[in-house]
């Protein structure tokens, strides 16, 4: 019991409850003093949730070092907390590897919650007419599925960027370990606040939260806005940390063009999350202010402009999809040479293509607004800039195909997920230009075609590479290798059924099925399609359950794997697993190209003093 109470997480949650209560009380008090009726739910709950999040951070203990600095005290720089064992995963650890695993666990948790939401409303959609959900429940689950998954993805990429980037560049830790820990821990109250919207009336706007609907939605809307704003800080500060780490803490001999591709991808991703994320936060905060103080940003009756919201929102939310996929595409490029035993084709082009996608990604946002009634002359430039994204993405595809060409392929589980990722991302990529082209998009906008396209890009660009990365780096994290048979079972459950589902989504979309709606006309004849999609969704979920079984099985029965399991050239595999606390005890020296697999006698790294 004493151990439980000493955990940062438990203390944080206790403080969060206290903070929320204080915040609600404070608002009631201020209102009473101003002579207004003391109880008004919306301002009280919003302020309470915000104060609760701050109290959570204090309770976890993440602010302690900063408060000491403010008081003029010195703190130690690298705290070795490995003596705490499992408990350090529940407290404010400064070790990037611990933080990476914390991110990973929270991401998997939120992914399961978001997936569960999808299963519930997918079941509702299996037949026309409403079966067991109310319309508001359907809308809330559908909206929350979107945003919970987005936050889960942001946490998932942070997991691998945190865990891998310092290791891959030969650093001991991130540039700002305390900020790193802060970035993780602020995501916890953010997730809680987001999910609390379920119990506060829900909301019905979809994950985009467009006004004027979001101005009128129930109280849950505010929790959605607040949760996303806080999660945004996690992404912003995490991105800042990655950029500084990559720029400043590389091993001395690691020149820019000898960095692993994943580091390039992390850098490109972080540039977007550092800058653009602020605008989704701002756009949501503006709606919050409109709801709280009647500020008429998006209210035409007060001289506001609803289209302005869409511009601010999509300025982040389109580049956001590149935040989601760039690390995944980086993982594909990183792992492919290992499993085909051949050099990565066109290293420099692949490295630059990540930055290219990131930069072009800033110029395409209004393609989401072709039907919104924005200025006509903006449509064509945004169409062309969007189509331009295909160029750097195509570079990556050519590189992958040329890398696999005539390789000695071994089909371990990570490789299977990588190959599925490439194929599914290709489906997602090819279904993109019809949405980017104005004439076809006017037809496809807001149909299930978009849903199919989007899920293909997310699975190909994130989910499959994410699972590949877990299987690949699991021995590094724990010293045990995940079970291959269960891994392959998981793969064959997820990959085919998901592909069928997404293709059917596009099919019904082309036939006129609207997205986001809770019900459809039986006369349209979509019932059989939706039934198959629902079955496929359950098979996918079964695959995820097999993955969790695999985690438990490996924990108890897994064989130790402490060596270079995949025969990789990368520096983290040249030392025993699990990784020592301070990564490398000797300085890393880069002596060759990173991906020269199959070339006899070539090396990428050696350690200082090594022959």
């Amino acid at each position: 019991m004493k151990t439980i109470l000493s955990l940062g997480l438990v203390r944080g949650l206790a403080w969060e409850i206290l903070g929320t209560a204080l915040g609600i009380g404070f608002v009631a008090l201020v209102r009473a003093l101003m002579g207004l009726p003391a109880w008004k739910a919306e301002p009280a709950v919003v302020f309470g949730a915000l104060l609760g999040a701050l109290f959570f951070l204090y309770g976890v203990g993440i602010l302690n070092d900063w408060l000491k600095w403010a008081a003029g005290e010195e703190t130690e720089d690298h705290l070795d907390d490995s003596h705490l064992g499992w408990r350090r995963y529940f407290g404010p650890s400064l070790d990037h590897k611990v933080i990476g695993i914390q991110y990973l666990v929270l991401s998997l948790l939120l992914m399961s919650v978001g997936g569960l939401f999808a299963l519930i409303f997918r079941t509702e959609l299996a037949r026309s007419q409403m079966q067991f959900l109310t319309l508001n429940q359907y809308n809330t689950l559908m909206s929350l599925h979107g945003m919970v998954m987005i936050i889960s993805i942001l946490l998932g990429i942070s997991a691998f960027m945190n865990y891998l980037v310092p290791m891959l560049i030969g650093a001991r830790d991130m540039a700002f370990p305390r900020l790193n820990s802060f970035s993780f821990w602020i995501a916890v109250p953010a997730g809680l606040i987001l999910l609390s919207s379920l119990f506060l009336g829900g909301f019905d706007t979809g994950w985009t939260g467009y006004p004027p609907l979001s101005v009128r939605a129930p109280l849950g809307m505010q929790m959605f806005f607040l949760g996303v704003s806080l999660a945004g800080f996690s992404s912003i500060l995490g991105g800042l940390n990655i950029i500084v780490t990559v720029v400043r803490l590389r091993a001395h001999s690691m020149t820019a063009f000898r960095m692993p591709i994943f580091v390039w991808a992390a850098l490109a991703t972080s540039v977007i999350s550092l800058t653009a994320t602020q605008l989704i936060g701002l756009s949501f905060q503006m709606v919050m202010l409109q709801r709280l103080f009647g500020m008429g940003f998006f209210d035409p009756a007060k001289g506001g402009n609803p289209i302005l919201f869409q511009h601010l929102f999509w300025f982040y939310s389109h580049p956001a999809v590149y935040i989601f996929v760039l690390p995944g595409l980086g993982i594909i490029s990183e792992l492919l040479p290992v499993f085909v035993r051949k050099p990565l084709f066109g290293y420099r082009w692949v490295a630059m293509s990540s930055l290219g996608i990131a930069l072009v990604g800033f110029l395409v946002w209004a393609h989401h607004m072709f039907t919104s009634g924005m200025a006509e002359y903006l449509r064509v430039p945004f169409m062309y800039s969007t189509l331009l994204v295909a160029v750097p993405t195509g570079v990556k595809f050519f590189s992958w195909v040329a890398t696999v060409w005539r390789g000695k392929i071994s089909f371990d589980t990570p490789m299977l997920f990588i190959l599925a990722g490439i194929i599914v991302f290709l489906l997602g990529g090819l279904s993109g230009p019809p949405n980017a082209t104005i004439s076809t998009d006017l037809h496809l906008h807001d149909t299930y075609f978009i849903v199919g396209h989007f899920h293909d890009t997310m699975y190909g660009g994130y989910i499959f590479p994410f699972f590949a990365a877990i299987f690949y780096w699991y021995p590094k994290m724990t010293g045990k290798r995940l079970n291959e048979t269960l891994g392959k079972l998981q793969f064959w459950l997820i990959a085919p059924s998901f592909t069928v589902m997404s293709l059917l989504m596009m099919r019904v979309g082309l036939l006129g099925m609207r997205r986001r709606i809770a019900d459809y006309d039986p006369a349209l004849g979509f019932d059989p399609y939706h039934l198959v999609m629902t079955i496929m969704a359950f098979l996918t979920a079964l695959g995820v359950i097999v993955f969790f079984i695999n985690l438990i099985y490996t924990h108890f029965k897994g064989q130790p794997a402490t060596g270079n399991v995949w025969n990789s050239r990368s520096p983290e595999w040249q030392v025993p697993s699990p990784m020592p606390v301070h990564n490398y005890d000797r300085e890393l020296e880069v002596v060759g190209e990173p991906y020269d697999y199959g070339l006899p006698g070539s090396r990428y790294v050696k350690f200082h003093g090594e022959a």
Partner: protein
Amino acid sequence: MAHITKSAAFRLGLLVFGALAALTVVEFVLALYLNIWQLLLLVAILKAGLVLYYYMHIYRLFQADTTLDHNSYAYKLATNRLGLWLFFISDSFVFGGLMIARINLLGLTHPHLEQTVGLIVTAVLLISSFFMNRAETAMAHGDRKQFAISTAITLALGILFLIGVVGVEWQIAPFGPGDGAQGAVFYSMTGFHAFHVLTGVIFLAIVLRNGLRGRYSPEKHWGVEACAIYWHFVDVVWIFYYPALYLVGTAIA
């Protein structure tokens, strides 16, 4: 600028302040008689450039490292600087987003505001930037007394700015936050900015307290430097917000 003498550094700070003050007067007069927004933007960019270079020392970001030892103070100092500047870039997107909203909703009009108050708070923030720079220069040259005096003056001027905006301008403005697009734009822009000033004031109080207790030295005073460039960053934001809220175009009736 440790390579020049203390008095020369103080003189430079005063000179830059003089230029900024002159440009502010030019800006105000331009707004009165010509009101061409491109000219106002040009003046604002000039002012921001002066602050970025002379007060925020942006060139320090591009100076080569004197050591490659990742654990040395000098290397960590440069790393911290990069981190803080990236934070400024990120923060600029919030302020930029609000500016976009202002341009979209108000165009070539500005909220109906009291010009005297605007000019006074702008002057207060500008003078505070001068003293902030003086405090940092003093610490870099080991003049602890001047550091303490200048930091305290900056702190007082920061609080005065907050009183001017929140305590005076918000109270006398003829519209509330819910009154039309001008209310939304004015209260959100000044509110976000005032929040940053408030955090800067807290930062200043911490730096002043630690400085009085001898926590900083001419060689190691990252806390002072961070506080100073953060304060100047908040000033740079106001350099663009002041003309956007008070000067550009015609007042809304």
